[in-house]
């Protein structure tokens, strides 16, 4: 059935080692969860450090059957797959001593525990910098606003970040009686996590190349990451002193733009770039022929519409608007699937507005192995999207489920750090782990 090319490149490992081989990451707090996950997906040994009661994100749902449980948060399951987990209490002197030993065994620490928290306990970047610690080489502090500055202590949340950084003022509806919109869900943590990984890998590479002696700090501010992720609104202001205005289902822009999100006959939506006007004249004839089959091309064969394709982007407003109206009427005759497959078969970048989970059944992603099976702590099976890059010749390993609370205490503390096995129950009893 599928005429897709096979995937020989991804069938076997080139050297049997993961992409990010022999890098140990110790991660604490919740702001660095995404960064840790992205590193774990490419083979880093990521050890998630939690208080004995479990880190906050275990206490955030959704949960199976909406029954809260420290081992069952689906959010925790998604953000912590492929990691190992240990517990320790940083308020406890013995817990802090173990924390230091863990850090010293690592190449990278990701501190997402909140601004100033570890430093106040004497076991943060400041202690590392002061000397005496044998590691890590790279300390990534992920905070809402950065380690210093007038807002460093401010209260934050994903909503507040997407507001302050600018995405919300570009996102929403043409009707400005409706509020700016926070895109679902938790994207400030993704933006921050992705850039944190850039900083961490950049620092590791720089240290390996001898560009600095280390230890190196990556002072990562989520506010800055979100602020850097707004595409056109910055150039509109910097070069034109214009403010992009949000518009329903399409790019914000300083002035009015044609609609591009059209309802289909089955009551769903298509995203039709440019409102239907092809980017290149060579696609126009195919599109018109397609529309003719539904007697829907109206007047789009008039030469002025072809000419509009070559017009500068601040010209031919009337023709662009007309393209959008006619295409909207055409799309209203089609099912979403017809519009999507039909448009793409003519090399038109038309996108189906899907629910995320609809991708689970799209054979293209099956061809690409885009989802990996994930066993949840209660034994149920699900599929999880994995880090979105493929290295030829590297097998994408099955993901391990997120760690149970303290699951790897014995392996890490005893087998790797050499804490006597009989000492572990005593540490637990004293509340240190």
């Amino acid at each position, binding site marked *: 059935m*599928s005429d897709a090319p096979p995937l020989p490149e991804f069938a076997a490992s*080139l050297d049997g080692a993961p992409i*990010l*081989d022999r890098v140990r990451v110790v991660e604490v707090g919740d702001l660095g969860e995404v960064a840790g996950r992205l590193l774990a997906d490419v083979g880093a040994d990521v050890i998630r450090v939690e208080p004995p009661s479990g880190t906050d994100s275990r206490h955030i749902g*959704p949960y199976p059957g909406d029954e809260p449980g420290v081992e069952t948060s*689906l959010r925790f399951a998604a953000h912590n797959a492929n990691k190992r987990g240990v517990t320790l209490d940083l308020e406890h002197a013995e817990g802090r001593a173990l924390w230091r030993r863990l850090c010293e065994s690592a190449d990278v620490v990701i501190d997402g525990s909140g601004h100033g928290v570890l430093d106040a306990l004497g076991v943060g970047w400041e202690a590392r910098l002061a000397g005496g610690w044998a590691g890590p080489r790279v300390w990534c502090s992920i905070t809402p606003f*950065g380690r210093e*500055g007038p807002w*460093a202590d*401010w*209260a934050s*949340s994903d*909503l*507040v*970040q997407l507001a*302050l*950084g*600018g995405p*919300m003022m*570009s996102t*929403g*509806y043409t009707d400005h009686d409706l*509020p*700016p*919109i926070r895109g*679902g*869900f938790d994207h400030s943590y993704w933006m921050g996590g*992705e*850039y944190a990984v850039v900083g961490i*890998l950049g620092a590791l*590479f720089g240290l390996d*190349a001898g560009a*600095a002696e280390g230890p190196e*700090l990556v*002072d990562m501010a989520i506010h*800055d*990451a979100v602020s850097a992720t707004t*595409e056109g*609104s910055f*150039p509109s*202001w910097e*070069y034109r002193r214009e403010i992009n205005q949000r518009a329903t289902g*399409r*790019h914000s822009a300083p002035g009015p733009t044609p609609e591009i999100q059209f309802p289909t006959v089955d009551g769903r939506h298509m995203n039709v770039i440019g409102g239907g006007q092809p980017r290149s004249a060579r696609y126009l004839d195919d599109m018109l022929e397609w529309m003719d089959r539904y007697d829907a091309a109206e007047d789009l064969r008039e030469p002025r519409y072809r000419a509009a394709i070559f017009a500068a*982007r601040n010209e031919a407003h009337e023709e662009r608007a007309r393209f959008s109206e006619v295409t909207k009427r055409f799309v209203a005759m089609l099912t979403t699937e017809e519009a999507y497959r039909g448009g793409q078969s003519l090399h038109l*970048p038309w*996108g189906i507005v899907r629910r995320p*989970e609809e991708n689970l059944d799209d054979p293209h*992603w099956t061809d*690409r192995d885009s989802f990996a099976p994930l066993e*949840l702590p209660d034994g149920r099976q*699900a599929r*999880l*999207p994995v*880090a*979105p*890059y*493929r*290295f*030829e010749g590297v097998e994408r390993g099955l993901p391990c489920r997120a760690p149970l609370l303290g699951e790897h205490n014995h392996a890490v503390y005893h087998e790797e750090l050499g804490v006597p096995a009989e000492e572990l129950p005593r540490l637990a009893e004293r509340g240190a782990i």
Partner: protein
Amino acid sequence: MAKSDANSDRAYDERPRPLAGVRVVDFTWIVAGPQATRIIADLGADVIRVENEGHMDSLRGGLPPDGPPHPDRSGIFNNFNRNKRGITANIHHPRTRELIEQLISGADAVTENFSPGAFARMGFGFERLRELNPRIIYLSLSGYGHYGRDSSYVTWGPTAQAVSGLTYISGLPDQDPAGWGYSYLDHSAGYYGAIAMLLALRRRERIEGAQRIDISQVETGMVMTGVTMLDCQINGRPSERIGNRSRHPALAPHGAYRCAGDDRWITIAVETEEHWRELCEELGAPELAEDERFASLEARLEAEDELDAAITECTREREPRALMFALQARGVPAGLAQNMPDKMQDEQLAARGFYRAAPSPYVGDRFYEGLPFLFRQLGWDVHRGAPGLGEHIDEVLTELGCTPEEIAQLRAEAAV
């Protein structure tokens, strides 16, 4: 540490760059690819854009600061291509092809974001690239990736956002999807491109041979939907858009509230009962805290519409920036929905030196968005604007050993 160094531009600008000495031959265009190589260039790599004058990067058609559009003066192009060098090349000219191949032979990486197969048809398939350079890193970014039955499908940022599911889950429940008001996944594809490039550069120290990386822009959106996908699979609950509300954790009030002025909004995220009491105090509405309907989180979640209306009554006459400072002083998570003029006056971004000024012969001294992290010893910078079309032809071809006469000859033959 970080702060004082960031504020002292000179000190920061003299820092060693992590990727100094790395060279990337960059065939990318528009936004997603240039976003990836922008990060790599900011970190110190020598990124040389190879452009086709006959099929120009559409971003060069962006609006200039003043006057008519000009390929060298597009604001958005300048923003995404700062720090890079640029040449134009007619790859159908045999001598030019030879020179481009020479460039690739001496480089660390090649990047492109054409439709799958297009780069191979230009004569730069992976096999050819590895012949030219046995240790090359080849990074491709495309909508659906180079493998899989729909790999020929075409995307722009918004297409990928629609297909990935991000568009559907953004917006108000009783309205059409709002989507994202820009090509968010062009950024994301660029971020994952930069991450993959850094992984490959590090891995190259360990392995022999060339590396090929295939990035699908739609997949960069899908990876961010893991939580809602699990919720759907395990609880049978389809993903829905919920406006600015918060379900996991369930919080109320949680939203954007209209303030005084034209299209001014403040976001407020009440996470604790103390936040709730402080919010009511600050809004001058202690009666709300006493109101039965809002007496507990459960009650407020039941009455969210009434709650939001009651808060809006209090915020609509307030100046949003002052209200943000007042709420933050009380420890309540609150933030103005900032537009660009707000961000240019954002004192936290200023303290971190986020916007960096750099010169350009085409558009003058301009601000650029920086990277969102500060190092201790290493550095990144923005030292120049984007290259003009073909600006570095002489410089790059001279580095490749061409004489001025040969360069003039190539120009005469429209080979560059």
